[in-house]
């Protein structure tokens, strides 16, 4: 799809849009396609679901700032409200459709780069120390927790489980309006 044609269609579209940027050779793209198609059916009439072949739309892909595929972007009123990169569980993809529909992003915005770096350095330091000091089970366990806390927002298992855990404990989700 041409860049100009895409943005014209996007701005004129009466409904919010979820755009799946994929390629035929991309295995993770194929893995999430059934979930996206199912969600496209579920949200039919409320959110439109478009597929963009990255190989045929290099200009468009660049102008959307896509660096890896699959990337799924939610648009509302022609403006991007949320995006997810890489293979995602269906629940996470469903959040994108919800984000397009409501404009509210229902998932955690993720760690700040400094926060992530500090946790990684501290976790690595504790891991080395734990290994040298015995090894010490306590320090190794703490280093595991700290290292996981540095990457939890990118862990697909955590992403799949956290909304369920939140519902279980009735904890309100973080809401961010972009």
């Amino acid at each position: 799809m041409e860049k100009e044609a895409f943005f014209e269609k996007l701005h004129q579209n009466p409904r919010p849009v979820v755009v799946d940027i994929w390629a035929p050779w991309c295995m993770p793209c194929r893995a999430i396609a059934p979930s996206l198609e199912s969600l496209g059916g579920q949200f039919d009439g409320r959110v439109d679901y478009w597929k963009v072949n990255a190989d045929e739309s290099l200009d468009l892909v660049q102008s959307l700032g896509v660096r890896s595929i699959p990337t799924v972007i939610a648009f509302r009123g022609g403006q991007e409200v949320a995006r997810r990169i890489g293979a995602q569980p269906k629940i996470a993809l469903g959040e994108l459709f919800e984000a397009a529909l409501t404009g509210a992003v229902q998932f955690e915005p993720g760690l700040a780069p400094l926060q992530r770096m500090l946790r990684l350095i501290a976790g690595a330091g504790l891991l080395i120390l734990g290994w040298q000091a015995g090894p010490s089970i306590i320090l190794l366990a703490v280093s595991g927790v700290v290292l996981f806390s540095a990457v939890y927002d990118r862990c697909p298992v955590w992403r799949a489980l956290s909304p369920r855990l939140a519902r279980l404990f009735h904890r309100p989700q973080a809401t961010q309006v972009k």
Partner: protein
Amino acid sequence: MSYINQASWDRIVRIALGIILLYLGWAGVVPGGLGVFLKVIGFVPLITGLVGWCPLYALLKVRTNKV
């Protein structure tokens, strides 16, 4: 995030201090009771640095970061 009351430099210093104290305690550099004390107390600056929130700052109503 609103709960954070430490600046970036403060957090880096705390994490470094925590790792040094834990190293002195757990690697056996400091023996005896002081070593055991360091094994435990080292977690305090480390955790407060990682979380970005210092309870003592909150108690004294001070902060090193900008609101």
